[in-house]
């Protein structure tokens, strides 16, 4: 390990609550609290922090964060362009790149979401129309707006609809079933029941519960969809050299990757215009290839995985993208594998913080702090959202 190798040394979060559950505090205040918690976990002080990173239209501007936390200097501030939950690992990657390049020493990556105070994330432009004007054309404000014209007027209004259509095609091509998707929901909920932070920790789930939950967009039932939450989390990235003096064991970022096959994400991220093989994938092929090449390992070397779980079915697609099983075999593979995944409960059952909480859990797992520990786990894969341009990390336990 080189002295400047990027290492995660601290993780932290606020309380996680259901939509609107943290109404007395601003989303921005939650971001500040999560950053403070992660820095404290690392055994560092706020005056050690000289960089900030986030992703996907974060409302909680790093420049304000730096001022309000009294950082002596802000030397690096980045926000990944990758949309929605695709950018969580990319934000950590951008922090790692900056630290390794000597642009900053201690960078905090943060994400705060108060879904109760803002509109539903992923709801497309023009989704709310209450101006009383007669229907007609209007001028596009962005390429996204322009593409949304070919989905929104048809009622394709929210991510569960978009990805229901992907899974419908996957079921048609490969025989994937709703029960196989239910297995994902049930297993992650089981993990959540041991995690005091998990929003759904007090509500065990059976396959029957999954099957009888209301339909949102076929084939997705309610329990195929992640929650919408209030809460924030953060991770602290620094050099291996600094990590040696931190309070707890670190997790080395041995590889990071971000991106997508060229046109993936096209058409307001709906991908319906793409080749069938690409459409029925999670789009993680480029990230998977680069990530494993950079880490010098393969899927078989992964001890525990945090797979972005906005929708149950897309967990299965990522297992295919990342080469844990062959294309089309995600459903049966999930049911049979002993690979531990989303030991915190994931976005389906711990909290929906755009997958930055998956990085938090990856670090806890390697430190032996998880509430569903994987004995001897040394190598952890973390993925960000499938179905959009995305990113991933391989974390390794620092001895």
């Amino acid at each position: 390990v080189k002295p400047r190798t990027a290492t995660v040394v601290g993780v932290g979060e606020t309380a996680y609550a259901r939509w609107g559950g943290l109404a007395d505090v601003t989303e921005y205040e939650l971001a500040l609290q999560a950053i403070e918690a992660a820095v404290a976990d690392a055994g560092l002080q706020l005056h050690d922090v000289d960089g900030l990173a986030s992703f996907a239209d974060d409302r909680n501007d790093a420049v304000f964060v730096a001022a309000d936390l009294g950082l002596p200097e802000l030397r690096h501030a980045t926000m990944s362009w990758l949309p929605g939950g695709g950018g969580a690992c990319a934000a950590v990657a951008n922090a790692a790149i900056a630290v390794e390049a000597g642009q900053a020493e201690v960078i905090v990556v943060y994400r705060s979401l108060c879904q109760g105070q803002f509109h539903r994330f992923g709801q497309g432009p023009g989704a709310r129309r209450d101006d009383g004007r007669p229907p007609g054309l209007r001028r596009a404000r962005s390429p996204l707006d322009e593409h949304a014209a070919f989905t929104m007027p048809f009622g394709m209004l929210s991510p569960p609809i978009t990805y229901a259509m992907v899974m419908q095609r996957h079921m048609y091509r490969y025989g994937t079933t709703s029960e196989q998707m239910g297995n994902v929901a049930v297993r992650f909920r089981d993990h959540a029941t041991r995690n005091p932070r998990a929003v759904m920790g007090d509500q065990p789930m059976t396959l029957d519960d999954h099957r009888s939950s209301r339909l949102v967009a076929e084939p997705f039932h309610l329990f195929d969809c992640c929650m919408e939450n209030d809460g924030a989390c953060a991770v602290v990235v620094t050099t291996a050299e600094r990590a040696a003096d931190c309070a707890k064991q670190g997790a080395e970022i041995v590889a990071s990757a971000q991106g997508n096959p060229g046109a993936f994400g096209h058409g307001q991220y709906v991908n319906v215009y793409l080749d069938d093989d690409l459409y029925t994938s999670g789009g993680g092929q480029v990230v998977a290839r680069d990530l494993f090449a950079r880490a010098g390992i393969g899927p078989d070397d992964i001890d525990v995985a945090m797979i972005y779980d906005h929708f149950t079915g897309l967990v299965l697609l990522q297992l295919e993208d990342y080469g844990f099983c062959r294309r089309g075999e995600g459903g049966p593979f999930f049911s049979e594998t002993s690979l531990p995944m989303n030991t915190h409960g994931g976005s389906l059952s711990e909290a929906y913080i755009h997958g930055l909480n998956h990085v938090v859990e990856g670090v806890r797992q390697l430190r032996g702090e998880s509430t569903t520990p994987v004995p001897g786990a040394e190598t952890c894969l973390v993925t960000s959202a499938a179905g959009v341009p995305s990113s991933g990390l391989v974390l390794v336990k620092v001895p």
Partner: protein
Amino acid sequence: MSELRWFPDAMPVPAVSPVTLPWWRAAAEHRLVVQVCDACGATRHPPSPRCPRCHAPGSSWRDLPGTGSVFTFTVVHQAFLPALAEHVPYVIAVVDLDDSDGARLVTNVVDGVPSTVCIGDRVSIVFEDMGPDLAVPRAVTDVGAPDR
């Protein structure tokens, strides 16, 4: 112009740019068109400023027959807009458009029972007039089509 109406006025309205306006103008005239690259002849949808295959900017518009097959679909049960509360469940389908060299259209299958839609179903495009200058393509099942 048809009197057919399926969706409420409060549906999101299309945002257009100079690149996409010709497609929506054609739709207002109840014509389904596809953008064709002047340089290499490749089609593309939705309309975009350059050909993704040969990178040339010039393009023209070709009329399509307005038939196709369901590539994928979903039956939406949750009303993500208050105005849709009376309209769920509704079907969104992606249609492989005939004679389009690979173009697909997001649309709605508006006739029949939502639970009977299947991948591969043959459909015909019809237009719903939503306003004076706005018509939105929808799909009806076309049971008489030969290659069903």
